[in-house]
């Protein structure tokens, strides 16, 4: 653990639950407060750099696990899987979900810098550290499958505490209980072509999209079920983010559409070797309208360098001299790399095409 991580962990360890019975409204020996106007609990200005712990916030990894063990009152400590929450926050609004006073690439603002360990009678609008942390957690865990009971996070009072070592395999793991369907079929209101089939697995595996690529600022309940709701989020990504220029019929149909098949859809069978190549390697970056027939340059990028096969005009089984050197690979290699190739007669026939070429008729 490097120094910034250690500092961050220290911050978490500082989170505390005020023991009951302690005087929350100050000591009785204090003089009475003078009469004053009722405080208008203001929106507090965010603490600035000189007040904050100098930890690069979001450019540095946070701790895997934070043990919140200062409380130990009615309940035992909390073992907080920071890594798991960090991953979920990619979808639901970034680290600022919890670190709400910290902006990207700024030092983390510690909770205790605004939220005092004990409630302050003079400023009832400020939530104490204990209240703030509970709110932060329960804002999501409020009614999650009725699991908002204290024991969901807290150990029993006096129970043996879990340490980070007990969470080795668990920490940061992709939740296994989230298993989206391979495909979803939607009955839209569109007249004529109401059925839209969305192949989730293809988007994840074939197209290599991450959860956050689509589910940015999405509802927690999409994964966690009804009840796990955050009302503040508005989903930022939908189909049109990528498919703005896609033809209607590519998605809409009268019945369920089959999964994407490169051979059927494009006439180019990827075969065994090309199936493992990512879309971008051939088609270049971008989705939707950017999908075009690969330029020869992209074939050569692999076939020259990766395979060590000198696939230039001289080594090509057919000498590609003259104007042939400028052909796109797919002009001859149709269907698949191994599949049927153009024969000479497709261009060089006895007809007058191309007009300038030396057709068989001229021989």
């Amino acid at each position, binding site marked *: 653990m490097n120094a910034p991580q250690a500092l961050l962990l220290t911050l978490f360890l500082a989170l505390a639950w005020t023991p*009951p*019975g302690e*005087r*929350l*409204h*100050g*000591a*009785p*020996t*204090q003089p*009475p*407060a003078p009469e004053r106007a*009722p*405080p*208008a*609990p*203001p*929106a507090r200005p965010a603490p600035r750099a000189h007040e904050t712990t100098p930890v690069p916030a979001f450019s540095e990894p946070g701790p895997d696990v934070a043990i919140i063990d200062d409380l130990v009152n*009615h*309940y035992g400590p909390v073992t907080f899987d920071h890594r798991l929450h960090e991953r979920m926050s990619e979808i639901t609004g970034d680290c600022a979900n919890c670190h709400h006073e910290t902006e990207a690439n700024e030092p983390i603002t510690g909770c205790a810098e605004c939220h005092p360990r004990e*409630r302050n*009678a*003079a400023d*009832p*609008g400020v*939530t*104490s550290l*204990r*209240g703030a942390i*509970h*709110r932060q957690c*329960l804002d999501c865990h*409020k*009614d999650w499958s*009725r699991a*908002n*009971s*204290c*024991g969901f996070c807290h150990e029993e009072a006096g129970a043996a505490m879990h340490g980070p070592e007990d969470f080795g395999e668990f920490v940061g793991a992709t939740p296994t209980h989230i298993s989206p369907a391979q495909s979803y079929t939607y009955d839209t209101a569109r007249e004529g072509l109401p059925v839209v089939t969305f192949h989730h697995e293809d988007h994840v595996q074939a197209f290599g999209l991450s959860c956050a690529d689509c589910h940015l600022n999405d509802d927690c*309940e999409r994964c966690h079920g*009804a*009840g796990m*709701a955050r*009302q503040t989020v508005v989903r930022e990504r939908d189909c049109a983010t990528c498919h703005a220029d896609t033809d209607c019929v590519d998605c809409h149909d009268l019945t369920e559409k089959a999964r994407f098949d490169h051979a059927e859809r494009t006439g180019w069978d990827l075969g065994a070797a090309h199936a493992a190549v990512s879309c971008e390697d051939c088609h270049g970056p971008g989705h939707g309208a950017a999908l075009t027939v690969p330029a020869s340059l992209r074939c050569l990028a692999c076939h020259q360098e990766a395979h060590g096969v000198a696939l230039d005009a001289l080594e090509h089984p057919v000498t590609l001299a003259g104007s042939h050197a400028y052909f796109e690979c797919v002009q001859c290699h149709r269907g698949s790399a191994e599949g049927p190739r153009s024969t000479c007669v497709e261009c060089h026939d006895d007809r007058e095409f191309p007009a300038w070429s030396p057709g068989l008729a001229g021989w």
Partner: protein
Amino acid sequence: MSAPCASTVTSRPSSQTREPDRAQPTTSRRAFLGISVGATLAAPALAAAGEHASALHQDRMGVLVDLTECVGCRRCEWACCDANGLPHGPLHEYDDQTVFEARRYPSPNQLTVVNRAKSDQTEREPVHLKVQCMHCDKPACVSACLVGAMQKDPDGPVHYDASRCIGCRYCMVACPFEILSYEYERSLAPRVRKCELCRDRTRDGKLPACVEMCPVEALTYGRRSELLALAHDKIARHPDRYTDHIYGEHEAGGTSWLYIAGRDFASLGLPTVGPKSPAALSEAIQHGIFRGFAVPIVIAGLLGAVNHLTKEDHK
């Protein structure tokens, strides 16, 4: 009634000055009867004095409940029982959410209860409502009590004194919030039971037990005036989160407990109560009749005159 009471917290006048207010009454019921006879004779003077009895300290305390923060964990129920010496199970028993299936009312063994409001279909999270004595500024229970067993502390709490109570339960009928409960199952000296705003704890500088326990600090204890300012500020800053209504600011003449919520309070199960104290009308009639003892004198005079004029006929 004594002068306005001193504070229960340190930022207010020291606790010694409040002792006279909190001195246990020594009046027995027999002595009370004697007093009441004298009081009848001195009714005009008492009626005049009564107008000053409701003087409230401007720093009186209260609790602000932010229903948008409450998660329905029911730990306030546990803390209340624990602080008041009432029977209660271990904390984890309060995880039981089946209790929300029926609306509950405070009872002698549970001075505060949390209910789950009926869903209005648009909310995605259930709304929970903690109920307890509202500690009205002009309490109907105090007005209804024949023997002064219910008293409003000038600094907030409405206090019940079992040693004075004759068990008539007029206070229960009078309460517009249907809060008071009675120990019907206790055969000897049953008591009315209600939240006392933890006046013993606050006198020692502690928070009310429920406020201290609340994990999300949905409950805030403080001066009522400051809580109102805080509530108004919250509503102004988050108009999408709160309805523009502080329940208890004006209800029943104002209460020490204040609520803010995301939807109207009637739908949450809080009674719709007008801005006038329910005691106002009956007190106005009573005090009006007896003001200067004029009406009784007039009536007695009329009856005497009738008697005097009619008794001649029977000779």
